[in-house]
Protein backbone atom coordinates (compact mmCIF):
# COMPACT_ATOMS: atom_id res chain seq x y z
CA UNK A 1 0.00 0.00 0.00
CA UNK A 2 1.26 3.33 -0.96
CA UNK A 3 1.74 5.54 2.14
CA UNK A 4 0.03 8.90 1.92
CA UNK A 5 2.24 11.74 2.89
CA UNK A 6 0.66 14.40 5.08
CA UNK A 7 1.86 17.32 3.02
CA UNK A 8 0.00 20.58 2.58
CA UNK A 9 -2.51 20.19 -0.12
CA UNK A 10 -2.47 22.39 -3.08
CA UNK A 11 -5.37 22.67 -5.34
CA UNK A 12 -5.10 23.11 -9.04
CA UNK A 13 -1.93 21.11 -9.19
CA UNK A 14 -2.77 20.00 -12.65
CA UNK A 15 -2.76 23.57 -13.95
CA UNK A 16 0.61 24.28 -12.40
CA UNK A 17 -0.80 26.87 -9.96
CA UNK A 18 -0.41 26.00 -6.28
CA UNK A 19 -2.16 27.45 -3.27
CA UNK A 20 -1.73 26.48 0.40
CA UNK A 21 -4.68 24.86 1.95
CA UNK A 22 -5.21 27.52 4.65
CA UNK A 23 -7.50 27.24 7.60
CA UNK A 24 -10.05 29.94 6.85
CA UNK A 25 -12.70 29.02 9.32
CA UNK A 26 -14.40 31.75 11.35
CA UNK A 27 -13.26 30.66 14.83
CA UNK A 28 -9.63 30.63 13.71
CA UNK A 29 -10.00 34.14 12.31
CA UNK A 30 -11.77 35.40 15.36
CA UNK A 31 -9.14 33.97 17.67
CA UNK A 32 -6.42 35.49 15.59
CA UNK A 33 -8.12 38.93 15.58
CA UNK A 34 -8.59 38.85 19.32
CA UNK A 35 -4.96 37.82 19.82
CA UNK A 36 -3.66 40.65 17.69
CA UNK A 37 -5.98 43.13 19.30
CA UNK A 38 -4.76 42.08 22.70
CA UNK A 39 -1.16 42.49 21.61
CA UNK A 40 -1.93 45.96 20.31
CA UNK A 41 -3.73 46.91 23.48
CA UNK A 42 -0.87 45.59 25.59
CA UNK A 43 1.63 47.55 23.51
CA UNK A 44 -0.41 50.71 23.77
CA UNK A 45 -0.81 50.28 27.48
CA UNK A 46 2.91 49.65 27.87
CA UNK A 47 3.89 52.65 25.78
CA UNK A 48 1.42 54.97 27.42
CA UNK A 49 2.42 53.87 30.86
CA UNK A 50 6.12 54.34 30.06
CA UNK A 51 5.39 57.76 28.64
CA UNK A 52 3.24 58.64 31.64
CA UNK A 53 5.79 57.44 34.14
CA UNK A 54 8.62 59.40 32.45
CA UNK A 55 6.64 62.52 31.69
CA UNK A 56 8.27 64.35 34.58
CA UNK A 57 11.81 63.72 33.33
CA UNK A 58 11.95 66.29 30.58
CA UNK A 59 10.56 69.25 32.52
CA UNK A 60 12.88 68.34 35.37
CA UNK A 61 15.82 68.19 32.97
CA UNK A 62 14.88 71.47 31.43
CA UNK A 63 14.58 73.05 34.82
CA UNK A 64 17.95 71.65 35.82
CA UNK A 65 19.52 73.02 32.65
CA UNK A 66 18.01 76.38 33.30
CA UNK A 67 19.29 76.30 36.84
CA UNK A 68 22.73 75.29 35.64
CA UNK A 69 22.72 78.16 33.19
CA UNK A 70 21.71 80.59 35.91
CA UNK A 71 24.44 79.28 38.19
CA UNK A 72 27.05 79.53 35.45
CA UNK A 73 26.00 83.10 34.74
CA UNK A 74 26.10 83.88 38.42
CA UNK A 75 29.54 82.33 38.77
CA UNK A 76 30.86 84.23 35.74
CA UNK A 77 29.47 87.47 37.07
CA UNK A 78 30.98 86.88 40.48
CA UNK A 79 34.36 85.98 38.97
CA UNK A 80 34.18 89.13 36.91
CA UNK A 81 33.21 91.23 39.88
CA UNK A 82 36.09 89.74 41.85
CA UNK A 83 38.55 90.48 39.06
CA UNK A 84 37.28 94.02 38.81
CA UNK A 85 37.56 94.47 42.56
CA UNK A 86 41.09 93.11 42.93
CA UNK A 87 42.80 95.03 40.15
CA UNK A 88 46.33 96.09 41.00
CA UNK A 89 45.31 99.76 40.82
CA UNK A 90 42.62 99.33 43.45
CA UNK A 91 44.89 97.34 45.72
CA UNK A 92 47.63 99.95 45.34
CA UNK A 93 45.22 102.79 46.11
CA UNK A 94 43.86 100.97 49.11
CA UNK A 95 47.36 100.32 50.40
CA UNK A 96 48.35 103.97 49.98
CA UNK A 97 45.14 105.15 51.60
CA UNK A 98 45.95 102.95 54.58
CA UNK A 99 49.38 104.47 55.01
CA UNK A 100 51.37 101.67 53.45
CA UNK A 101 54.33 102.42 51.26
CA UNK A 102 56.46 100.56 48.79
CA UNK A 103 59.34 98.60 50.19
CA UNK A 104 61.85 100.36 47.95
CA UNK A 105 60.99 103.85 49.20
CA UNK A 106 60.21 102.94 52.80
CA UNK A 107 62.82 104.13 55.31
CA UNK A 108 64.92 101.18 56.29
CA UNK A 109 67.10 100.73 59.32
CA UNK A 110 69.96 98.35 59.76
CA UNK A 111 71.18 96.68 62.91
CA UNK A 112 73.91 94.20 63.61
CA UNK A 113 72.75 90.77 64.46
CA UNK A 114 73.56 90.18 68.09
CA UNK A 115 75.16 86.89 69.04
CA UNK A 116 73.25 84.13 70.68
CA UNK A 117 73.06 84.27 74.49
CA UNK A 118 75.98 82.57 76.13
CA UNK A 119 74.25 79.47 77.35
CA UNK A 120 76.44 76.40 77.88
CA UNK A 121 75.71 73.70 75.43
CA UNK A 122 73.79 70.85 76.96
CA UNK A 123 76.20 67.98 77.45
CA UNK A 124 74.88 64.66 76.34
CA UNK A 125 74.37 62.13 79.09
CA UNK A 126 77.33 59.75 79.30
CA UNK A 127 76.58 56.51 77.65
CA UNK A 128 78.29 53.39 78.73
CA UNK A 129 78.76 50.68 76.22
CA UNK A 130 79.77 47.23 77.40
CA UNK A 131 81.28 44.89 74.93
CA UNK A 132 81.86 41.27 75.65
CA UNK A 133 84.36 39.60 73.41
CA UNK A 134 84.54 35.90 73.22
CA UNK A 135 87.45 34.37 71.43
CA UNK A 136 86.89 31.09 69.79
Amino acid at each position, binding site marked *: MKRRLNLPQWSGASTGLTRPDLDLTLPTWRARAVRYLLIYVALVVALISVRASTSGVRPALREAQQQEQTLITQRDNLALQL*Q*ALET*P*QRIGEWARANGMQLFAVAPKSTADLTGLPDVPLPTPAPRRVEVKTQWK
Partner: protein
Amino acid sequence: MEVKIRTRSALMRLIALAMFLTLVWAYAQLEWGAPQGVRQRAVQARGSILSADGRVLATSVNGKRVYPQGTLAGQIVGMMGDTEGLEGLEAAYNGPLTSGQNLKLTLDSQIQAAAESALNKVVPEHQGEYGSVMVLETRTGRVLAAATYPAFNPNDWRQFSQEQRRNRPFIDQFEPGSTIKALVVAAALNEGLTTPNTLYSTPMSRFVGGRWGSRIGDAVAHPSTLTTQGILRYSSNVGMTHIVEHFDPKRMREYLAQYGFGQKVALPVVPSGRGILKPLEQWGELVRATNAFGQGMSSTNLQLVSAFNVLANDGQYVAPRLIEGSGGLERRNVLRPEVARSTRQLLLNVVNEGIFHAAGIKGYDLAGKTGTAQVVVDGRYSSTIYDSVFAGFLPAEAPRVTITVMVHGAKQRHHGSQLAAPIFREVSAQVLSSWGATPHTDTAP
Protein backbone atom coordinates in the same frame (compact mmCIF):
# COMPACT_ATOMS: atom_id res chain seq x y z
CA MET B 1 -13.55 88.87 -15.58
CA GLU B 2 -13.27 92.37 -14.30
CA VAL B 3 -13.67 91.25 -10.71
CA LYS B 4 -11.05 88.60 -11.14
CA ILE B 5 -8.45 91.08 -12.36
CA ARG B 6 -9.20 93.37 -9.44
CA THR B 7 -8.71 90.55 -6.95
CA ARG B 8 -5.49 89.53 -8.59
CA SER B 9 -4.09 93.06 -8.54
CA ALA B 10 -5.02 93.39 -4.86
CA LEU B 11 -3.21 90.15 -4.17
CA MET B 12 -0.15 91.38 -6.02
CA ARG B 13 -0.22 94.63 -4.09
CA LEU B 14 -0.34 92.67 -0.89
CA ILE B 15 2.60 90.50 -1.92
CA ALA B 16 4.59 93.56 -2.99
CA LEU B 17 3.88 95.23 0.33
CA ALA B 18 4.95 92.11 2.22
CA MET B 19 8.20 91.91 0.25
CA PHE B 20 8.89 95.57 0.84
CA LEU B 21 8.27 95.18 4.56
CA THR B 22 10.65 92.21 4.59
CA LEU B 23 13.31 94.39 3.02
CA VAL B 24 12.70 97.12 5.59
CA TRP B 25 12.95 94.59 8.39
CA ALA B 26 16.20 93.14 7.00
CA TYR B 27 17.71 96.59 6.63
CA ALA B 28 16.69 97.49 10.16
CA GLN B 29 18.41 94.33 11.39
CA LEU B 30 21.63 95.36 9.66
CA GLU B 31 21.37 98.91 10.86
CA TRP B 32 20.73 98.01 14.51
CA GLY B 33 23.50 95.47 14.56
CA ALA B 34 23.89 91.89 13.54
CA PRO B 35 21.13 89.46 14.45
CA GLN B 36 21.26 88.75 18.17
CA GLY B 37 22.05 85.08 17.82
CA VAL B 38 25.03 85.54 15.51
CA ARG B 39 26.46 88.31 17.61
CA GLN B 40 26.15 86.43 20.85
CA ARG B 41 27.76 83.34 19.38
CA ALA B 42 30.65 85.36 17.88
CA VAL B 43 31.32 87.05 21.20
CA GLN B 44 30.98 83.94 23.32
CA ALA B 45 33.38 81.90 21.21
CA ARG B 46 36.03 84.65 21.19
CA GLY B 47 39.32 84.00 22.98
CA SER B 48 40.49 85.90 26.05
CA ILE B 49 43.40 88.28 26.39
CA LEU B 50 45.62 87.60 29.40
CA SER B 51 48.57 89.35 30.97
CA ALA B 52 51.83 87.50 31.63
CA ASP B 53 50.84 86.97 35.28
CA GLY B 54 47.51 85.48 34.26
CA ARG B 55 45.16 88.39 34.79
CA VAL B 56 42.25 88.51 32.40
CA LEU B 57 42.32 91.72 30.38
CA ALA B 58 39.48 90.82 28.03
CA THR B 59 37.01 87.96 28.05
CA SER B 60 33.48 87.00 27.04
CA VAL B 61 30.79 86.44 29.63
CA ASN B 62 27.16 85.67 28.76
CA GLY B 63 27.66 86.74 25.18
CA LYS B 64 29.14 90.08 26.19
CA ARG B 65 32.72 91.26 25.77
CA VAL B 66 34.07 92.57 29.07
CA TYR B 67 37.35 94.02 30.26
CA PRO B 68 37.53 93.14 33.96
CA GLN B 69 40.66 95.21 34.64
CA GLY B 70 38.99 98.38 33.41
CA THR B 71 41.53 100.94 32.34
CA LEU B 72 44.54 98.65 32.80
CA ALA B 73 46.32 98.58 29.43
CA GLY B 74 43.12 99.85 27.84
CA GLN B 75 44.77 101.32 24.76
CA ILE B 76 46.84 98.17 24.19
CA VAL B 77 43.89 95.81 24.51
CA GLY B 78 41.59 98.00 22.43
CA MET B 79 37.94 97.08 22.10
CA MET B 80 35.49 94.97 20.21
CA GLY B 81 32.45 96.09 18.23
CA ASP B 82 29.47 93.85 17.52
CA THR B 83 31.33 90.94 16.00
CA GLU B 84 34.85 92.16 15.21
CA GLY B 85 37.72 93.77 17.08
CA LEU B 86 37.88 97.47 16.35
CA GLU B 87 41.12 98.69 17.86
CA GLY B 88 44.25 97.60 19.70
CA LEU B 89 45.00 93.91 20.06
CA GLU B 90 41.30 93.08 19.65
CA ALA B 91 41.65 94.34 16.07
CA ALA B 92 45.25 93.29 15.40
CA TYR B 93 44.67 89.71 16.57
CA ASN B 94 41.04 89.52 15.45
CA GLY B 95 41.63 86.30 13.48
CA PRO B 96 43.15 84.18 16.25
CA LEU B 97 40.73 85.58 18.84
CA THR B 98 37.72 84.84 16.63
CA SER B 99 38.88 81.27 16.24
CA GLY B 100 38.80 80.94 20.02
CA GLN B 101 42.51 81.22 20.76
CA ASN B 102 43.62 83.02 23.90
CA LEU B 103 46.21 85.76 23.62
CA LYS B 104 48.90 85.87 26.28
CA LEU B 105 50.72 89.16 26.56
CA THR B 106 54.12 89.89 28.05
CA LEU B 107 52.63 92.71 30.14
CA ASP B 108 53.08 92.47 33.88
CA SER B 109 49.87 93.77 35.43
CA GLN B 110 51.64 95.10 38.55
CA ILE B 111 54.18 97.11 36.59
CA GLN B 112 51.54 98.24 34.11
CA ALA B 113 49.35 99.43 36.97
CA ALA B 114 52.31 101.18 38.60
CA ALA B 115 53.17 102.96 35.35
CA GLU B 116 49.58 104.07 34.84
CA SER B 117 49.12 105.26 38.39
CA ALA B 118 52.42 107.17 38.27
CA LEU B 119 51.25 108.94 35.11
CA ASN B 120 47.81 109.58 36.60
CA LYS B 121 49.37 111.08 39.68
CA VAL B 122 52.17 113.20 38.26
CA VAL B 123 50.94 114.42 34.86
CA PRO B 124 47.85 116.32 36.15
CA GLU B 125 50.01 118.04 38.76
CA HIS B 126 51.98 119.59 35.89
CA GLN B 127 48.90 120.07 33.73
CA GLY B 128 50.33 117.83 31.05
CA GLU B 129 48.31 116.96 28.00
CA TYR B 130 49.23 113.32 27.53
CA GLY B 131 52.02 110.95 28.34
CA SER B 132 53.28 107.43 28.08
CA VAL B 133 55.58 105.01 29.89
CA MET B 134 57.34 101.96 28.47
CA VAL B 135 58.99 99.23 30.54
CA LEU B 136 61.06 96.57 28.81
CA GLU B 137 62.63 93.44 30.24
CA THR B 138 66.27 93.99 29.38
CA ARG B 139 67.49 90.56 28.30
CA THR B 140 64.42 89.40 26.39
CA GLY B 141 62.85 92.61 25.12
CA ARG B 142 59.49 91.61 26.61
CA VAL B 143 57.26 94.65 27.05
CA LEU B 144 56.35 94.65 30.75
CA ALA B 145 54.31 97.84 30.59
CA ALA B 146 53.07 100.20 27.92
CA ALA B 147 51.00 102.82 29.69
CA THR B 148 49.19 105.81 28.28
CA TYR B 149 47.77 108.87 30.01
CA PRO B 150 44.86 109.77 29.97
CA ALA B 151 43.41 106.37 30.69
CA PHE B 152 40.93 104.58 28.48
CA ASN B 153 38.32 102.11 29.66
CA PRO B 154 37.29 99.73 26.87
CA ASN B 155 34.16 98.70 28.80
CA ASP B 156 32.47 101.91 27.75
CA TRP B 157 34.58 102.85 24.79
CA ARG B 158 31.88 104.97 23.21
CA GLN B 159 32.45 107.57 25.91
CA PHE B 160 36.06 108.12 24.80
CA SER B 161 37.41 110.07 21.88
CA GLN B 162 39.70 108.74 19.20
CA GLU B 163 42.56 110.62 20.86
CA GLN B 164 42.02 108.88 24.17
CA ARG B 165 41.97 105.47 22.51
CA ARG B 166 45.35 106.09 20.89
CA ASN B 167 48.07 103.67 21.91
CA ARG B 168 50.54 106.49 22.37
CA PRO B 169 53.78 104.69 23.33
CA PHE B 170 53.67 102.73 20.07
CA ILE B 171 52.33 105.36 17.70
CA ASP B 172 53.12 108.89 18.89
CA GLN B 173 56.33 110.31 17.48
CA PHE B 174 58.28 112.97 19.30
CA GLU B 175 61.76 114.42 19.38
CA PRO B 176 63.52 112.46 22.11
CA GLY B 177 65.75 115.40 23.05
CA SER B 178 68.70 115.05 25.38
CA THR B 179 68.06 111.39 26.19
CA ILE B 180 69.74 110.68 22.84
CA LYS B 181 73.00 112.15 24.19
CA ALA B 182 73.66 108.96 26.13
CA LEU B 183 73.27 106.89 22.97
CA VAL B 184 75.47 109.18 20.87
CA VAL B 185 78.14 109.26 23.57
CA ALA B 186 78.06 105.46 23.65
CA ALA B 187 78.46 105.37 19.87
CA ALA B 188 81.38 107.83 20.07
CA LEU B 189 82.99 105.74 22.81
CA ASN B 190 82.52 102.66 20.65
CA GLU B 191 84.26 104.42 17.75
CA GLY B 192 87.06 105.58 20.00
CA LEU B 193 86.22 109.24 19.37
CA THR B 194 86.04 110.14 23.03
CA THR B 195 86.60 108.80 26.54
CA PRO B 196 84.59 109.45 29.70
CA ASN B 197 87.26 111.88 30.89
CA THR B 198 88.07 113.74 27.66
CA LEU B 199 87.88 117.46 28.40
CA TYR B 200 86.01 119.85 26.11
CA SER B 201 85.78 123.60 26.06
CA THR B 202 82.11 124.38 26.58
CA PRO B 203 80.91 127.95 26.35
CA MET B 204 77.18 128.45 26.93
CA SER B 205 76.56 128.72 23.19
CA ARG B 206 78.36 128.01 19.96
CA PHE B 207 77.81 128.56 16.24
CA VAL B 208 77.68 125.31 14.25
CA GLY B 209 77.34 124.58 10.56
CA GLY B 210 79.18 127.32 8.68
CA ARG B 211 77.12 129.32 6.24
CA TRP B 212 73.82 127.49 6.76
CA GLY B 213 74.52 127.00 10.43
CA SER B 214 72.83 128.04 13.57
CA ARG B 215 73.71 129.01 17.13
CA ILE B 216 73.38 126.17 19.58
CA GLY B 217 72.96 126.99 23.23
CA ASP B 218 72.73 125.28 26.61
CA ALA B 219 69.90 125.56 29.11
CA VAL B 220 71.68 124.62 32.33
CA ALA B 221 74.54 126.80 33.62
CA HIS B 222 77.79 124.83 33.72
CA PRO B 223 81.58 125.29 33.96
CA SER B 224 83.43 126.47 30.84
CA THR B 225 85.13 123.11 30.43
CA LEU B 226 83.41 119.78 30.79
CA THR B 227 84.40 116.15 30.50
CA THR B 228 82.17 113.73 28.63
CA GLN B 229 80.74 112.79 32.01
CA GLY B 230 80.10 116.45 32.71
CA ILE B 231 78.44 116.97 29.34
CA LEU B 232 75.91 114.28 30.22
CA ARG B 233 75.58 115.55 33.77
CA TYR B 234 74.80 119.14 32.65
CA SER B 235 73.14 117.96 29.43
CA SER B 236 75.29 120.31 27.39
CA ASN B 237 74.31 120.68 23.74
CA VAL B 238 77.51 122.58 23.05
CA GLY B 239 79.51 119.73 24.53
CA MET B 240 77.72 117.26 22.29
CA THR B 241 78.61 119.29 19.20
CA HIS B 242 82.26 118.83 20.20
CA ILE B 243 81.91 115.10 20.79
CA VAL B 244 80.43 114.48 17.33
CA GLU B 245 82.75 116.92 15.58
CA HIS B 246 84.85 114.10 14.11
CA PHE B 247 82.03 111.59 13.81
CA ASP B 248 81.56 110.58 10.16
CA PRO B 249 77.90 111.50 9.45
CA LYS B 250 77.34 108.20 7.66
CA ARG B 251 78.70 106.23 10.62
CA MET B 252 76.72 108.23 13.14
CA ARG B 253 73.53 107.82 11.18
CA GLU B 254 74.21 104.09 10.96
CA TYR B 255 74.55 103.94 14.73
CA LEU B 256 71.21 105.70 15.21
CA ALA B 257 69.61 103.32 12.70
CA GLN B 258 71.18 100.37 14.52
CA TYR B 259 69.58 101.63 17.72
CA GLY B 260 66.31 101.37 15.78
CA PHE B 261 65.54 105.02 15.03
CA GLY B 262 63.79 105.63 11.74
CA GLN B 263 63.35 101.88 11.35
CA LYS B 264 60.25 99.77 11.54
CA VAL B 265 60.01 98.00 14.89
CA ALA B 266 60.02 94.24 14.38
CA LEU B 267 56.84 93.78 16.35
CA PRO B 268 54.44 91.61 14.35
CA VAL B 269 50.87 92.70 13.57
CA VAL B 270 50.64 95.49 16.16
CA PRO B 271 50.77 98.92 14.51
CA SER B 272 53.69 101.10 15.57
CA GLY B 273 55.36 104.27 14.39
CA ARG B 274 58.62 104.41 12.51
CA GLY B 275 60.01 107.77 13.55
CA ILE B 276 62.09 110.04 11.38
CA LEU B 277 65.81 109.92 10.75
CA LYS B 278 66.84 112.35 8.07
CA PRO B 279 68.28 110.83 4.87
CA LEU B 280 72.05 110.86 4.62
CA GLU B 281 72.06 113.51 1.87
CA GLN B 282 70.72 116.04 4.36
CA TRP B 283 73.27 115.18 7.01
CA GLY B 284 75.32 118.33 7.14
CA GLU B 285 77.26 119.59 10.11
CA LEU B 286 74.15 121.13 11.66
CA VAL B 287 71.97 118.03 11.30
CA ARG B 288 74.75 115.94 12.83
CA ALA B 289 74.96 118.36 15.75
CA THR B 290 71.21 118.56 16.36
CA ASN B 291 70.83 114.80 16.06
CA ALA B 292 73.49 114.49 18.76
CA PHE B 293 71.04 116.05 21.21
CA GLY B 294 67.88 114.48 19.83
CA GLN B 295 66.37 117.26 17.77
CA GLY B 296 65.64 117.12 14.04
CA MET B 297 64.78 113.45 14.44
CA SER B 298 61.83 111.71 16.00
CA SER B 299 60.97 108.40 17.55
CA THR B 300 58.21 106.61 19.35
CA ASN B 301 58.49 105.75 23.02
CA LEU B 302 58.75 102.10 21.96
CA GLN B 303 61.78 102.90 19.81
CA LEU B 304 63.37 104.97 22.56
CA VAL B 305 63.02 102.20 25.13
CA SER B 306 64.42 99.64 22.68
CA ALA B 307 67.38 101.93 21.94
CA PHE B 308 68.13 102.50 25.62
CA ASN B 309 67.81 98.79 26.14
CA VAL B 310 70.95 98.43 24.00
CA LEU B 311 72.93 100.17 26.75
CA ALA B 312 71.25 98.03 29.41
CA ASN B 313 71.70 94.79 27.45
CA ASP B 314 75.49 95.03 27.07
CA GLY B 315 75.35 96.56 23.61
CA GLN B 316 72.90 94.16 21.97
CA TYR B 317 69.67 95.38 20.38
CA VAL B 318 66.70 93.11 21.08
CA ALA B 319 63.44 93.72 19.23
CA PRO B 320 60.61 94.27 21.69
CA ARG B 321 57.75 91.83 21.91
CA LEU B 322 54.27 92.10 23.27
CA ILE B 323 52.80 88.64 22.71
CA GLU B 324 54.33 85.62 24.45
CA GLY B 325 55.94 83.44 21.84
CA SER B 326 55.94 85.89 18.96
CA GLY B 327 58.35 88.62 17.91
CA GLY B 328 61.73 89.26 19.51
CA LEU B 329 63.29 87.90 16.35
CA GLU B 330 65.67 90.73 15.64
CA ARG B 331 68.91 90.83 17.58
CA ARG B 332 72.07 92.68 16.64
CA ASN B 333 75.21 93.85 18.34
CA VAL B 334 75.49 97.62 18.28
CA LEU B 335 78.09 98.38 20.95
CA ARG B 336 80.91 96.48 22.58
CA PRO B 337 79.85 95.20 26.02
CA GLU B 338 82.53 97.22 27.83
CA VAL B 339 81.36 100.42 26.10
CA ALA B 340 77.77 99.74 27.19
CA ARG B 341 79.03 99.14 30.71
CA SER B 342 81.01 102.37 30.92
CA THR B 343 78.04 104.33 29.48
CA ARG B 344 75.87 102.81 32.20
CA GLN B 345 78.36 104.06 34.78
CA LEU B 346 78.16 107.55 33.22
CA LEU B 347 74.37 107.47 33.47
CA LEU B 348 74.47 106.19 37.03
CA ASN B 349 76.62 109.21 37.87
CA VAL B 350 74.15 111.47 36.06
CA VAL B 351 71.41 110.32 38.42
CA ASN B 352 73.49 110.14 41.58
CA GLU B 353 75.31 113.45 41.16
CA GLY B 354 72.80 115.49 39.22
CA ILE B 355 69.19 114.54 39.76
CA PHE B 356 69.12 112.14 42.68
CA HIS B 357 66.33 114.14 44.32
CA ALA B 358 64.14 113.55 41.25
CA ALA B 359 65.14 110.20 39.85
CA GLY B 360 67.08 108.34 42.53
CA ILE B 361 65.97 105.97 45.25
CA LYS B 362 68.09 105.65 48.36
CA GLY B 363 69.98 102.41 48.45
CA TYR B 364 69.48 101.50 44.80
CA ASP B 365 71.45 102.21 41.64
CA LEU B 366 69.24 103.81 39.03
CA ALA B 367 70.77 105.13 35.83
CA GLY B 368 69.22 107.40 33.25
CA LYS B 369 69.10 110.60 31.30
CA THR B 370 66.55 113.37 31.16
CA GLY B 371 65.39 115.19 28.07
CA THR B 372 63.35 118.30 27.47
CA ALA B 373 62.53 118.80 23.81
CA GLN B 374 60.84 121.75 22.21
CA VAL B 375 57.91 120.71 20.09
CA VAL B 376 57.56 121.74 16.47
CA VAL B 377 54.34 123.69 15.94
CA ASP B 378 53.60 124.97 12.44
CA GLY B 379 57.14 124.30 11.29
CA ARG B 380 58.83 126.20 14.12
CA TYR B 381 60.03 125.18 17.56
CA SER B 382 57.43 126.36 20.05
CA SER B 383 58.68 128.17 23.11
CA THR B 384 55.73 127.12 25.24
CA ILE B 385 55.09 123.45 24.43
CA TYR B 386 57.63 120.88 25.53
CA ASP B 387 58.04 117.15 25.64
CA SER B 388 59.46 116.01 28.93
CA VAL B 389 61.38 112.76 28.55
CA PHE B 390 63.34 110.35 30.72
CA ALA B 391 65.08 107.14 29.79
CA GLY B 392 66.83 104.85 32.21
CA PHE B 393 67.33 101.37 33.57
CA LEU B 394 67.91 99.50 36.79
CA PRO B 395 69.88 98.24 38.53
CA ALA B 396 72.68 100.16 36.83
CA GLU B 397 75.34 97.50 37.24
CA ALA B 398 73.35 94.63 35.69
CA PRO B 399 70.07 96.04 34.41
CA ARG B 400 66.93 93.94 34.42
CA VAL B 401 64.44 96.51 33.16
CA THR B 402 64.62 99.56 30.92
CA ILE B 403 62.10 102.34 31.49
CA THR B 404 61.22 105.38 29.37
CA VAL B 405 58.78 108.17 30.14
CA MET B 406 57.35 110.84 27.87
CA VAL B 407 54.94 113.62 28.83
CA HIS B 408 53.68 116.17 26.33
CA GLY B 409 52.61 119.74 26.84
CA ALA B 410 53.07 120.26 30.57
CA LYS B 411 52.24 123.80 31.62
CA GLN B 412 54.20 123.80 34.86
CA ARG B 413 57.72 122.57 35.62
CA HIS B 414 58.03 120.89 32.27
CA HIS B 415 61.71 119.90 32.49
CA GLY B 416 62.58 116.24 32.15
CA SER B 417 64.06 116.23 35.63
CA GLN B 418 60.95 117.82 37.14
CA LEU B 419 58.29 115.77 35.45
CA ALA B 420 59.47 112.64 33.67
CA ALA B 421 62.15 111.71 36.20
CA PRO B 422 59.73 111.43 39.17
CA ILE B 423 57.51 109.15 37.09
CA PHE B 424 60.57 107.01 36.33
CA ARG B 425 61.33 106.89 40.05
CA GLU B 426 57.78 105.82 40.96
CA VAL B 427 57.78 103.01 38.42
CA SER B 428 61.26 101.93 39.52
CA ALA B 429 60.14 101.85 43.15
CA GLN B 430 57.29 99.52 42.24
CA VAL B 431 59.58 97.28 40.20
CA LEU B 432 62.20 97.12 42.96
CA SER B 433 59.53 96.46 45.58
CA SER B 434 57.99 93.68 43.56
CA TRP B 435 61.42 92.04 43.36
CA GLY B 436 61.95 92.61 47.07
CA ALA B 437 65.40 93.91 46.13
CA THR B 438 67.57 94.67 49.14
CA PRO B 439 69.22 98.10 49.23
CA HIS B 440 73.00 98.62 49.43
CA THR B 441 74.36 98.37 52.89
CA ASP B 442 76.75 101.29 52.33
CA THR B 443 74.07 103.85 51.48
CA ALA B 444 71.27 102.49 53.62
CA PRO B 445 70.74 104.62 56.70
